[in-house]
């Protein structure tokens, strides 16, 4: 009954957040109802809330979110269509003036996925499989990474020497990956986007440096790496701050002859790379074109946009 206990805890917590203290019997009834048992004594509000919940389903899944929880919609078909066009939580209905229990639980589950994306590390097996070595910024742990953005942009002298010793020097283009604020984004996209960019650049005749992985990294690391390796164009593939719609979004920040302290406006960004945005492989082909354009124009960011 481990699942039962977990559900009890979650429901008690949710109900108490919704309206103060809750008698244990009410929680029990909700659990019973949600597990498929009968719950004759449950109060009407609680039992109707629980009727929407099935412990076996993944409430954060696309399939689950596609089902409207609005009671008696005037046009179910139209609602389903609207829902298919947006990840926003529409057609969820309400319980009095508040969210339904299922909506609240889904929000919390999505939030948990977002937190996981931030706090988890990228699986070393993935990096090993892709042949990427790992270096770390000045941050020593996740908490420091989150609270000290300045350290997340810098490397120790020792790390810089390691990067220089393991990488090809002065390539046309240096690409690397970094966790940023979503390790999940790396896990979801890196394997498909990195080879697409690398192959794309090779067929354009540009030399590409040795790719690697930066742990606890922010976008600004590319300035230090560009200086250390003497590349003309630098590109970091980095996890974006997750939202409640997706935790898998990745961006590419590209700059021409990046230097530490340069204005942010010199970066060109390609964002929204995930299965619900632009597919990683297609983004890779586009980024290869963009890098070539920056290489030829010898400028990036706003300067490139303004011609």
């Amino acid at each position, binding site marked *: 009954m481990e699942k039962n206990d977990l559900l009890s805890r979650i429901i008690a917590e949710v109900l108490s957040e919704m309206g103060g203290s809750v008698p244990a019997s009410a929680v029990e009834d909700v659990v019973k109802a949600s597990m498929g048992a009968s719950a004759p004594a449950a109060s009407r509000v609680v039992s109707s809330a629980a009727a929407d919940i099935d412990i076996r389903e993944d409430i954060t899944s696309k399939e689950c979110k596609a089902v409207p929880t609005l009671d008696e919609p005037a046009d179910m078909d139209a609602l389903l269509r609207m829902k298919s066009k947006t990840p926003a939580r529409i057609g969820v209905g309400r319980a009095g003036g508040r969210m339904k229990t299922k909506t609240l639980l889904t929000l919390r589950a999505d939030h948990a996925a977002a937190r996981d994306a931030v706090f988890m590390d990228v699986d070393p097996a993935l990096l090993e499989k892709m042949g990427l070595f790992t270096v770390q910024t000045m941050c020593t742990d996740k908490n420091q990474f989150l609270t000290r953005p300045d350290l997340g942009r810098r490397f120790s002298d020792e790390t810089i020497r390691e990067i220089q010793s393991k990488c090809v020097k002065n390539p046309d283009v240096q690409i690397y990956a970094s966790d940023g604020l979503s390790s999940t984004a790396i896990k979801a996209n890196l394997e498909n986007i990195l080879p697409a960019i690398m192959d794309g650049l090779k067929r354009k005749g540009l030399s590409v440096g040795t790719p690697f992985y930066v742990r606890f990294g922010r976008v600004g690391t590319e300035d230090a790496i560009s200086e250390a390796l003497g590349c003309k164009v630098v590109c970091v593939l980095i996890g974006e701050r997750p939202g409640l719609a997706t935790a898998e979004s990745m961006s590419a920040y590209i700059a021409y002859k990046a230097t530490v302290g340069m204005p942010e406006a010199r970066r060109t960004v390609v*964002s929204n790379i995930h299965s619900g945005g632009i597919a*990683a492989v297609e983004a890779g*082909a586009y980024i290869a074109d963009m890098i070539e354009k920056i290489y030829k124009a010898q400028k990036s960011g706003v300067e490139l946009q303004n011609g």
Partner: protein
Amino acid sequence: MKEILSVGIDIGTSTTQVIFSRLSVENTSGYFTVPKISIVGKDIIYKGEIHRTPLRTRTLIDGEAVRDIVSAEFQKAGFTPSQTETGAVIITGESARKENSEEVLRYLSDFAGEFVVSTAGPDIESVVAGKGSGAAAYSEENGVAVVNLDIGGGTTNAVIFDDGEAVAKGCLDIGGRLVTVTPDGKLDYISESASLVAQSVGVTLRPGDAARREDLARLCDGYAAVLEQFLGIAEPTPLLSRLKTPGSSDFVLHPKLRAVCFSGGVADFIYGKQDDPFRFGDIGVFLGEAIVRSRICSALRRIGAAETIRATVVGAGTYTTSVSGSTIDYTDGLFPLKNIPVMRLNAEEQRACFGGDSAALAEKFRWFLSQNDCRNAVVAMDGEKDPSYVSVQRLAKAISGALDPVLPAGEPIMVVLRHDMAKVLGRQIRDAVSDKRPVISVDSILVQENDYIDMGRPLMDGMVIPVVVKTLIFG
């Protein structure tokens, strides 16, 4: 922003019309994401007069006279044929027969700018009219299924749009000029369709007899009853199948049909009133009034039409062109390409290709070319929303492995996908053929088996190409 001048020419059973529209193409995505170029504006900048279609006989079009009409409209609008970049000539209704299309094409070829296409057939006419009337847009905006009935002189073209997509097409021999009346009030022409319906409602119509209002009203009530059957509001009778236009698709009723929109000349008598029913010397007014009386307008929500008599020509001039996805890949210097047949892969065939199997594709492609007696064809498939890099590589090898040995030297490998993955696939195919053969790979285009596709010169720094998908070609 880039503007494209588009021309629409509709040569129907009773009327011939020309319009010009300006399509605005723009990048609608922000600077921080991959570009998304789409047609953001469709402005009709010139609406020509509604001309009676010049005929040599009752069914044969006078191509020379049509050319004079079109030429005069170009002059009035102030455009030359070389300025038009896209558009369509549509021959519709009873005029859409082979002799006519050949005749018209012969005389209009000078006006068909580089990228003007010619389409015909009841199915495409239905869809084009439904887009021009605004029914398609209404369906998309409101998320409902809408039927558009384009009631012209000889035929009623029907289309159901569900969420903006045409899901059913059909055509009936019901129209305003199936009976004509002389200026002195005598019945003149009585079509076969009208005789059938007259018989069913117990009315006798003979050429030369006086045209009696009550007879024509009853005849048109008969027509309206057939339309009710057609839309599933009444039980079908054998008459329904006898009025189905030869060559038109079977109209598959939509279970959630909610609204009806009318276009074509008769629509003006549904949405508005005409005091003198004999003013046009036909039964158009009677038919409109009969439809207002019928259960069609009570069973379904009647929505207003943006265009009535001009719906088809507006649809032809404004809605036939779309743009490809904004991340695509192609070899320079191949466009424009016209009338390329589409070979569509089903889900199973696509899966085999993604798995790297080229044998089945090669066989199908070879068979398709010989069946259609053509040198090349577009391979169309849905693709995948978020494919892995290795699967794209396998797909590219399968496609190049199948097509490269079959195609004559210099012919491009052409792929059209639904999902956004054309750029990466195009690159991989180029690699697979070592750049020895041109490649075109575009996405965000929906095509069906037996469609044909036109691809125009690239726009917006070469990021997109304009595309016209058509279901029928002639010439």
